[in-house]
């Protein structure tokens, strides 16, 4: 079995929880090379996501992805709002009528998300952005599918790769976004957007409990 609509909803509740818990860390990362709002922006966005998820019934994973996307677009602002929003809209389009997301679906959704971010933000790998977390995540997910991994294994592989990718943004010199104004001085700091991307994928992959009224569920098999 893969990831059904309830599991996707539960995963986004976990994401909201993780982002809120890491608000200050993300603020600090953004304060170092940006303007210090990334943690606040995403916390505001995912708090709104929680509320809109709680509002009604959800038909399919794609519908949930679309709802989360539009909520983020209309509440986050900054660079991250449209980028996360586009990513999730594209992910939704990649799995339009699935009832459950299997391993291939997860990999396809991730690849579509990356394409969306690149289409909007025109960043390349190495520019010190969230792209540097997504590129290895997509590659790892595709490798895991090729290795016959199940949904959970694909998510775990993507999450681990995103985390490494985020960590490896530290030495890079930013060439996109606000951090690019720093030039060489941006080196030596993690990119906040790459870090938050890793946190999002981590929350998707992990079976952590959800505090919401939607019962905690994780993607299975």
């Amino acid at each position, binding site marked *: 079995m893969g990831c059904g609509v309830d599991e996707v909803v539960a995963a986004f509740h976990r994401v909201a929880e993780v982002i809120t818990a890491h608000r200050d860390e993300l*603020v600090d990362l953004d*304060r170092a090379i940006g*303007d*210090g*709002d990334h943690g*606040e*922006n995403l916390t*505001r966005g995912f708090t709104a996501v929680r509320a809109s998820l709680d509002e009604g019934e959800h038909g399919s994973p794609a519908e949930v992805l679309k709802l989360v996307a539009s909520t983020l*677009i*209309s*509440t*986050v*602002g*900054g*660079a*991250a*709002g*449209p*980028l996360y*929003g*586009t990513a999730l809209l594209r992910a939704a389009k990649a799995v339009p009528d699935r009832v459950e997301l299997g391993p291939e679906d997860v990999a396809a959704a991730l690849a579509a998300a990356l394409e969306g971010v690149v289409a*909007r*933000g025109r960043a390349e790998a190495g520019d010190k952005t969230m792209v540097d977390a997504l590129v290895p995540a997509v590659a790892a997910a595709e490798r895991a599918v090729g290795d016959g991994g199940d949904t959970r294994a694909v998510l775990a592989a993507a999450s681990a790769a995103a985390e490494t990718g985020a960590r490896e943004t530290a030495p890079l*010199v930013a*060439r*996109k*976004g*606000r951090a*690019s*104004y*720093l*030039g060489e*001085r941006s080196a030596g700091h993690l990119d906040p957007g790459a870090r938050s991307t890793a946190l999002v994928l981590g929350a998707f992959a992990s079976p952590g409990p959800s505090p919401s009224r939607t019962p905690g569920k994780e993607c299975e098999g």
Partner: protein
Amino acid sequence: MKKILNDPSTVVTDALRGLALAHPELLRVSTDPAVVTRVEPTPPGAVAVVSGGGSGHEPLHSGFVGPGMLAAACPGPVFTSPTPDQVVAAVREVEAGGGALLVVKNYTGDVLNFETAAELLEAEGVEVRTVVVDDDVAVTDSSFTAGRRGVGGTVLVEKIVGAAAARGDSLDRCAEIAGRVNSQVRSMGLALSPCVVPHVGRPSFELGEDEIEIGIGIHGEPGRERIPLEPADGLVRRLLEPVLDDLPFASGDEVLLFTNSMGGTPPLELYLAHGIAERLLAERGIRVRRSLVGPYVTSLEMRGISVSVLRLDDELTALWDAPVRTTALNWGS
């Protein structure tokens, strides 16, 4: 952090409430989503000039809403660009068949959110043009950066294109004029002290007792260099030379000189700097035909100034002089 506020997360809406109460004859304010529109409706067929950006730069943009300037402004959270919803809601409210010109400062967040809004509006059948303002010469404009930042020049773009819209220019013509202003204006700023974003609670950067940052951005982004404080003559020269060399401005040019406070610089220092700037321009044979001095593009309580120079032609001068009635700029009748 000492600030006059109740809750950092509601500071923008709380301030908008005060703004609405203070200027009922001029402005109408919605808070969900946050949009400031002018009471006077856009004449049928006229272009609606709409801008927006993170809050904390007041009077930019809400202080420029009114006859002869903006039809609406979309204030985001402090230093965070507004969302596409805000822009869409604003344009829906003020667009009157002549299309909407979006004035956007060149920051990734602003560009992306306005881009998304423009796509949504075009899908609804509204004609939209966007001008991206990028006048800050402190940033190298190369493929290694997000491009030059939009700073002081934004006010000049908004005033001039607002006047063009008010005289009935078409959307294409407005877009051309706004682009022309942006192409003819250059700016640079410096900071004596940082600002504190309410939800961050700590200074955006640290400066030594006698240190200043040359080339500061309006969100506290770093500039070109940190130097020890020096007399005003030298400081103004450090801002003005890169500005003049960039376009470049030449002897015989007639310009608008805009000396801007980043928020916490008193008028005494600001006018003093303005006088120096005018003298330095005169030394280069550049004539100041129009002046603007004041806190117009601020960075919360930051102490510092920026200098913008706009090369004028007769049309831009006439549009600058045209009547405007907003809380921050107000002249003509």
